[in-house]
């Protein structure tokens, strides 16, 4: 039999109230209700077991009550996830971009290519936009998943697909480039699906490397005259991207959890 304490804990846990302080206060408020009920029932001469049974029966379905609380505090929850999404995107994009640029600078030095021609090129700008779009879409997926109780990934994917389509249409209408938005969305969906579907790190890494290998073959058609060193540089660049994006998924999860935890305690 479910006890009153379990009942209250279930309600508060399932209420999805963002603020830790508010959850604690609700727990305290419901506990005082239970105390009042128990006190009056004892005064009426009822036994402990009967009191617990009556209390649970009179209180109502905990899931239904929790859903009502979730509805009441929906705006705070959305604001919290939106704030976490924006800050996480900024932090993770900065870290990943800095890491990728540093590694590319290292590679450029290794291959004897002038540093400025690599970091100051249009290619670097495109890469930075690709990283921003991927991180934003990936963080968006993580945040959206938390808003849905049932089939979170499928629903988050549906919302992301719809949002990306609107963004791509808006960018295209104003004559702006859309490739990085499409790349970011597809890449984020691929990385998140791998993350959710595969539990072993080695398997995830293998699939991500294979995925980026396929992308490399699709997007890069080496001319017959291409020198082996150029091919090696391109291959190394794609593998570097795969490693960076896989590392991004770990960093994103940690930054998201840390920010969520911090904000919930504000």
């Amino acid at each position: 039999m479910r006890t009153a304490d379990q009942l209250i804990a279930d309600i508060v846990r399932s209420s999805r109230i963002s603020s830790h302080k508010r959850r604690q206060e609700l727990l305290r408020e419901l506990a005082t209700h239970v105390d009042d009920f128990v006190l009056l029932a004892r005064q009426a001469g009822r036994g402990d077991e009967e009191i617990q049974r009556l209390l649970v029966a009179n209180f109502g379905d905990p899931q239904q009550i929790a859903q009502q609380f979730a509805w009441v505090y929906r705006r705070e929850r959305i604001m919290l996830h939106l704030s976490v999404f924006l800050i996480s995107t900024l932090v993770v994009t900065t870290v990943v971009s800095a890491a990728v640029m540093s590694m590319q600078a290292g590679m450029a030095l290794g291959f004897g290519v002038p540093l400025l021609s690599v970091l100051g090129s249009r290619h670097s700008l495109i890469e930075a936009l690709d990283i921003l779009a991927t991180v934003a879409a990936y963080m968006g997926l993580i945040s959206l998943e938390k808003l849905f109780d049932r089939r979170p990934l499928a629903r988050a994917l549906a919302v992301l697909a719809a949002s990306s389509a609107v963004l791509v249409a808006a960018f295209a209408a104003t004559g702006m480039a859309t490739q990085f938005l499409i790349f970011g969305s597809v890449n984020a969906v691929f990385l998140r699906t791998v993350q959710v579907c595969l539990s072993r790190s080695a398997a995830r890494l293998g699939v991500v490397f294979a995925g980026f290998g396929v992308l490399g073959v699709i997007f890069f058609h080496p001319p017959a005259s291409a020198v082996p060193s150029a091919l090696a540089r391109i291959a190394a660049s794609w593998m570097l991207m795969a490693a960076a994006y896989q590392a991004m998924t770990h960093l994103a999860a940690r930054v998201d959890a840390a920010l969520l935890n911090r904000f919930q305690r504000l």
Partner: protein
Amino acid sequence: MEIDRELLKGSITLLLLNLLSRGEMYGYEILQAAAVRSAHAFEFKEGTLYPALHQLEKKGHIKAQWRTGDNGRERKYYSLTSKGRKAAQQYQRQWTHLTGAVNAVLESK
């Protein structure tokens, strides 16, 4: 007589605002007052009271304060705000109008 949940849902805001217009109360006290004043017609599931109270608090119709009651126990007391007082009067007018209209239909030949 047990009242249909859908019928009760529409009246709970008015009921809570009206009860709190008589003075501040804590959750359990509100339930007891509702049951006594309605001759036990209003005996809804106790847990559903709190989301309704929190919703009214968010709307600014009521405010809450933790304090120690006469019996030395600490409880969360709810009281009406001036916005809530106006809302209570407005809801009451709407309710009187609605029930009058419904009764007119029910009693018509």
